[in-house]
């Protein structure tokens, strides 16, 4: 599953951003999280791309919803959402992530936090749930609404992973 964006759309790579370990993180399927409090390193797939750590040009794992990001069913309680967030933060936050994936962990953590901040807010969650039901907005229109291609993916609040 390698993303197929054209290298031409990349901004020039500053020298000090020589490619490093920009491991892209995958999460286990939802059910895997219910067992233990910590997701082991086996949850992480091999890196699939390299990019600037903050210009998140690499392709997202194809989550179908914010619930998938937290590894929860759509009927999860607020309590479960909070616990899942804390559990995932304990694994993905850059302060606790392994040294070789500090940069990618920042992206992962931001994604988890974005999911949490929508789903832990009753209003935002209801709104999101309605959109999730419709589930028909084409990705392209979301892209156009934001800045240029290089930046679109970073707008977590408005540009969710579906």
């Amino acid at each position: 599953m390698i993303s197929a964006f054209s290298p031409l759309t990349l901004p020039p790579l500053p020298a000090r951003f020589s490619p490093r370990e920009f491991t892209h993180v995958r999460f286990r399927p939802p059910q895997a999280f219910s067992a233990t409090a910590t997701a082991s390193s086996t949850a992480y797939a091999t890196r699939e791309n390299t990019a600037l750590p903050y210009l998140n040009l690499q392709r997202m794992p194809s989550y179908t919803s914010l619930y998938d990001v937290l590894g929860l069913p759509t009927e999860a309680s607020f309590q479960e959402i909070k616990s899942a967030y804390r559990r995932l933060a304990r694994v993905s936050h850059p302060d606790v992530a392994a040294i070789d994936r500090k940069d990618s962990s920042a992206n992962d953590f931001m994604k988890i936090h974005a999911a949490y901040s929508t789903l832990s807010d009753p209003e935002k969650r209801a709104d999101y749930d309605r959109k999730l039901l419709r589930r028909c907005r084409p990705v392209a229109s979301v892209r156009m609404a934001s800045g240029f291609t290089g930046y679109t993916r970073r707008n977590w609040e408005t540009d969710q992973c579906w």
Partner: protein
Amino acid sequence: MAEPIYTVASDSETTGEDRSAPIFPEIAVGIDIGTSQCSIAFWNGSQVELLKNTRNQKIMRSYVTFKDDTPSGGVINELSHEYDMLSGAAIFNMKRLIGRVDTDPVVHASKSLPFLVQTLDIGVRPFVAALVNNVWRSTTPEEVLAIFLVELKMMAEHQLKRPIRNVVLTIPVSFSRFQLTRVERACAMAGLQVRLMPEPTAVALLYAQQQQQQAVHENMGSGSEKIALIFNMGAGYCDVAVSATGGGVSQIKALAGSPIGGEDLLQNTMKYLLPNVESIFSHRGIDEIRRMGLLRVATQDAIHKLSFQSSVQIDVNLGNGSKLCKVLSREEFEMVNSEVFEKCKNLVNQCLHDARVGIDDLSDVVVVGGCSNIPKIRSLLMQKSKKKALYEGMNPLEAAVSGAALEGAVASGIADPFGSLDLLSIQATPLAIGIRADGNSFIPIIPKNTTMPARKELVFTTVKDNQSEALIVVYEGEETRAEENHLLGYFKIIGIPPAPKGLPEITICMDIDSSNMLRVLAGARLPGAHHPATPFMEVKMPTVDDGHGWCAEALHGKYGAAMDLVSLQKKS
């Protein structure tokens, strides 16, 4: 699958950019250098322990005495009497001055200190000097801070018998990123790699650890979440945080801070006791400094006593035949400082509001810092939270440094067999970061209280037809007018494609990475174009140096509105 990628270590890991390498090879110690007191703590393998100096003190005075050639600080140096500190040779309260320019009201308030603080009011750093052998010898807040750090480092190295290279240093919430660079400069002068942690978030981490241990002890699950209000007021700063704690994770929901503290209480009280205090001491002769010092010590002493008794008798001989004899009641003290207490209340209100937390949601109210014994502060917080008691689980003077030591151990990757270090502190931005646009407005891009790491962007556009350049002026703060915030830096986007005004899309992205480094990215393109018109700009902030106070005015004077930007309203 993708080919393996051959990697070259990033330059930023091997150069002097130490803060991009937050991974500590050995356990970092925690240091709290307050406006008036400092302390150092470390993880001893099973718990946090504070180090004591040779005089058996865990809490040491934050001052440096300049004598002859070598300055010495309050960690090692012993004062024969507190009045020695007021001879003009001792410099203190530097935490209130670090990274501030001479137009700052906090700097002006520091001019009544018994040494030299001079201002020219042109947006440069103030002149600070100590009186040594009847000569005003200049120093800087960074130098004074570095001296404390070296002394604390030496003390710790001697007692722990290992080199100390990494520290977690606590800082006030209200510090701008420019001020942080000055603190980092002081740490570099002392040969230390530093991670900075806002004081109430360090307290919140200690609280999280205590709650976690209690949960384990009571064999409860870690599922329950506790909301704590943390109020930390020392001599120089008042900071408030609301944290959500559960399972050892301390998530900062909101922060609020202001440079108000015990020093303001002291100065207000001094002015009340001796209304013409400023004119008396305006000449800065040795005699005036001594008298100013005498009044200062007597007032400080009286304020301490008023925490435990309802009135206090002040008797102080100010020399020159003038004598101050007065009974000061707690009511008077509270009256002359009503503005300070009002500000404290506002900070609490603002923080609760920003955290979107109701009074009923609060599990605990934690009051720490040098001002935590003041009855008015305690009653104010109990009233506000509708609680009959405040949290009792921690020593108010040791909480911040203990939390910093915990963070040091956690960030060093130390595991504790009993799970005492299964902790995480999720930080939030204490101030909004944005740019000047829409005339003279401050447009936040990363709002205040955004969880970090963070990355946000906004799209702007030009104000003139065929405008080819735009000035990006980056500020940090909470004020609506751009220049009332802290200036972090500025740069110019060039090569905006010719187009009618309002058409080009200028995207400004701000990124705070895992080591709290702020980068601003900017690019311009025409709508519909897939490629940016020119290469992106990527600027590490802050870029401003000392004496930046008037940069914004200079830019405005030179360019006017020629390179302005306005927000682009998204068509949804």
